[in-house]
């Protein structure tokens, strides 16, 4: 109860305040449309929102899966070969600080700007870094007691990897995935601002804004929020299923 009531109260209060400010203060819709207007647009445009969300969702999911698989392979390799790990971690950390989304227009040139490949590639690249960096950290951190214990069992390298290193790295993998899942949706939506095929939520938002249909644009933003939230929640669910021993998520 005490965990549910305050956020609900805050949410309702914020909506009411927003509505009142806009209607009583006669705020122009291009500054901020009223929630009621946005809600009406969500109902009216629900078919379009779902279509655009499916397109963006497919891009985000493809990029997320591709980037994650690649990151897992890379992290396994980097934890296996010392030199590779030593070189790749600082390099990846630097790349991760760059605005990777800026690659979008270049990828549009390198591939067709009429295919979904550039957006999915950008998403995959954005996803790669948090998964790679977190998983590699997890693979490297092994409890020294576990290490000694496995030595007393005369366990070989492969047994050690399977019984200790991989399960021990699972929480770190999911830390990376949680970040990656929301980044994937953000990248897939925002990549459309840089041109390329325009069939997702990002394109819908810009075109509605260009037609000064601001409540409609906000309705698509709401769709994007729901998409991001569902990606995040599915990741949390997977985490729960994969690690039943965790009593608390998100430490």
């Amino acid at each position, binding site marked *: 109860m005490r965990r549910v009531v305050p956020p609900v109260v*805050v949410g309702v209060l914020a909506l009411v305040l927003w509505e009142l400010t806009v209607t009583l203060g006669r705020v122009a819709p291009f500054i901020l449309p009223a929630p009621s207007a946005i809600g009406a647009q969500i109902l009216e445009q629900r078919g379009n929102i779902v279509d655009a969300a499916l397109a963006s969702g497919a891009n985000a999911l493809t990029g997320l899966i591709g980037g994650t698989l690649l990151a897992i392979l890379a992290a396994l390799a980097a934890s296996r070969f010392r030199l590779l790990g030593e070189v790749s971690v600082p390099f990846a950390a630097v790349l991760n*600080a*760059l605005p990777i989304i800026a690659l979008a227009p270049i990828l549009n040139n390198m591939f*067709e700007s009429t295919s979904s490949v550039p957006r999915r590639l950008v998403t995959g690249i954005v996803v790669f870094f948090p998964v790679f960096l977190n998983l590699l950290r997890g693979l490297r951190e092994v409890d020294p007691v576990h290490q000694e214990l496995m030595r007393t069992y005369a366990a070989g390298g492969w047994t050690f990897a399977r019984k200790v290193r991989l399960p021990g790295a699972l929480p770190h993998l999911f830390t990376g995935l949680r970040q990656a899942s*929301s980044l994937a949706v953000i990248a897939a939506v925002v990549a459309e*601002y840089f041109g390329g095929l325009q069939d997702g939520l990002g394109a819908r*938002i810009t075109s509605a804004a260009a037609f000064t249909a601001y409540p409609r644009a906000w309705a698509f*933003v709401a769709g994007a929020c729901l*998409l*991001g939230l569902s990606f995040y929640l599915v990741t949390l669910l997977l985490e729960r299923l994969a690690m039943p021993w965790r009593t608390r998520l998100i430490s």
Partner: protein
Amino acid sequence: MRRFLAVLAGLLTGAAAWEGYKAVGNPDGTVLFGVRVLPRADDLSMPHLWTIAERLGAPELTGGRPVWRVVVDACLFTLGITTAGFVAGALIGLALAVAMQRFRVVERGLLPYVIISQTVPLVALAPLIAGWGGVLMPPWATVAVIAAYLAFFPVAVGMLRGLQSPSAAGVELMRSYAAGWWRTLVTLRLPAALPYLFPALRLAGAAAVVGAVVGEISTGTRGGIGRLLIEYAREATSDPAKVYTAMLGAALLGLLVAGAVSLLELPLMRHRRHVEVATL
């Protein structure tokens, strides 16, 4: 030093891969089942690295300033916006974190929204905030608003973790000294929060750069690197190397901000342990 060598090695590998692919790749890309899975390797899509370097030195338009000057100027312009956004976002994040630490009910009411807003692509709002330019604030400030908006989440969450990190023993010790909330905050909680604050600031710096670049593009603000990127991308068919110079500029901007934020922590974190902060 090791880090520098590692980054250099990574860059060289990347450069070798680029030129290597150009040497062996199909100029028209590799198409599988109607989808181009490997990029075109021709000079229009993937110019030689030296072409890009030469382009940096050549004038932007015939008789104009050299491209590198234009790119650096654009970077500095965006750096200004990023800084304004970063500082505003960090301050708001800090204030929110302190409020959430002080009042349990504020934490309960706000934290779910702060976390949720990290998971949703609210930067998608950028084209809508563009409408504020010229009405509520100058156009460049709308971009800074977007940057600030992206920067404040990591700071709010990371700082809250940090403020809550002192042990019960530490808090009780302060109580035994009859220190009030403010003294406890200044002498115990703020110093304890530093190891959490700096990783959060680094995330916030990177987010502010993304916000500024995306913001410039969707608000159409002129003069910055994001805008330059889009303009040069449009000229890609006639002048393919140009867009890469703008991309290098965006990378430079990211490095500048990351470096500046790292410098911030040097004097304060010398004798402190480093912690991992996951804000999501």
